[in-house]
């Protein structure tokens, strides 16, 4: 087993375990912290796939900004562990069975896939900032500018919704 595969399996185990802990922990603050762990391992996967720019953006935007926002909201609401009434056992069972059957269907469709060398991951340098920047500002300038309008409307929307009236 190569060192890349070893790192991949370790990172995958950590991310799946942390995602399960996000589901299972009662305290919402612990859930937020487990989700930060998931985001860091996904950034590790991006580095493993030679997508350095996305790894850095993932850490800055997700683990840095979005999760801090979540943490602020959770702490502002002062939710403790017994504030949330859990669903009935029947509803939990139905949710787990439906999610598990979705996973089963997708995995069985995947297992029918035949193996050839097109499915192997290749090495290239397109994850580097210089190549991504060329693509972004040559072919995707208009979506980039429209996303700034999206952010403006998100700011205005958050203020309007969150305003006390």
């Amino acid at each position, binding site marked *: 087993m190569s060192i890349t595969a070893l790192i991949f399996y370790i990172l995958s185990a950590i991310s799946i375990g942390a995602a399960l802990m996000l589901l299972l922990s009662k305290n919402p603050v612990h859930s937020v912290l487990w989700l930060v762990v998931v985001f860091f391992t996904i950034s590790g996967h991006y580095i493993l796939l030679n997508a350095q720019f996305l790894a850095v953006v993932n850490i800055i935007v997700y683990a840095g900004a979005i999760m801090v926002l979540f943490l602020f909201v959770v702490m502002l609401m002062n939710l403790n562990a017994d504030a949330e009434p859990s*669903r009935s056992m029947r509803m939990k069972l139905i949710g787990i069975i439906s999610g598990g059957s979705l996973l089963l269907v997708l995995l069985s469709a995947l297992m029918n896939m035949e193996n050839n060398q097109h499915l192997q991951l290749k090495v290239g340098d397109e994850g580097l900032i210089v190549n991504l920047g060329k693509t972004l500002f040559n072919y995707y300038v208009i979506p980039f500018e429209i996303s700034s309008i999206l952010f403006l409307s998100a700011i205005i929307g958050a203020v309007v919704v969150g305003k006390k009236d």
Partner: protein
Amino acid sequence: MDIKAYIVLSLILFTIGIIGVLVRRNAIIIFMCIELMLNAVNLLLVAFSRMHATNASVNHVAAANDAQVFVFFTMVVAAAEVSVGLAIIVMMFRNTHSVDVNFLNRLKN
């Protein structure tokens, strides 16, 4: 590495997110599970971009760059979505003094 390993990992993360949305009742946890599903899809996009990897400096129009730009835009939209969604959750908490999604059943009858 085989692409199958990444597909399986993304499927498992996505399914955990779906089960979280179905099982939990806390609106914030449901929102975090949606973020988890978004990240699983992002990871899959990056893995597929690695399948079509070429040397970008040789081939100027590299298809693999497009996937990573898509992931970048997904993150942009997710950041905007989180700010509005958390504002909605705060407003819901102010009105009902709870983040339980089962309180939101006024459209039911």
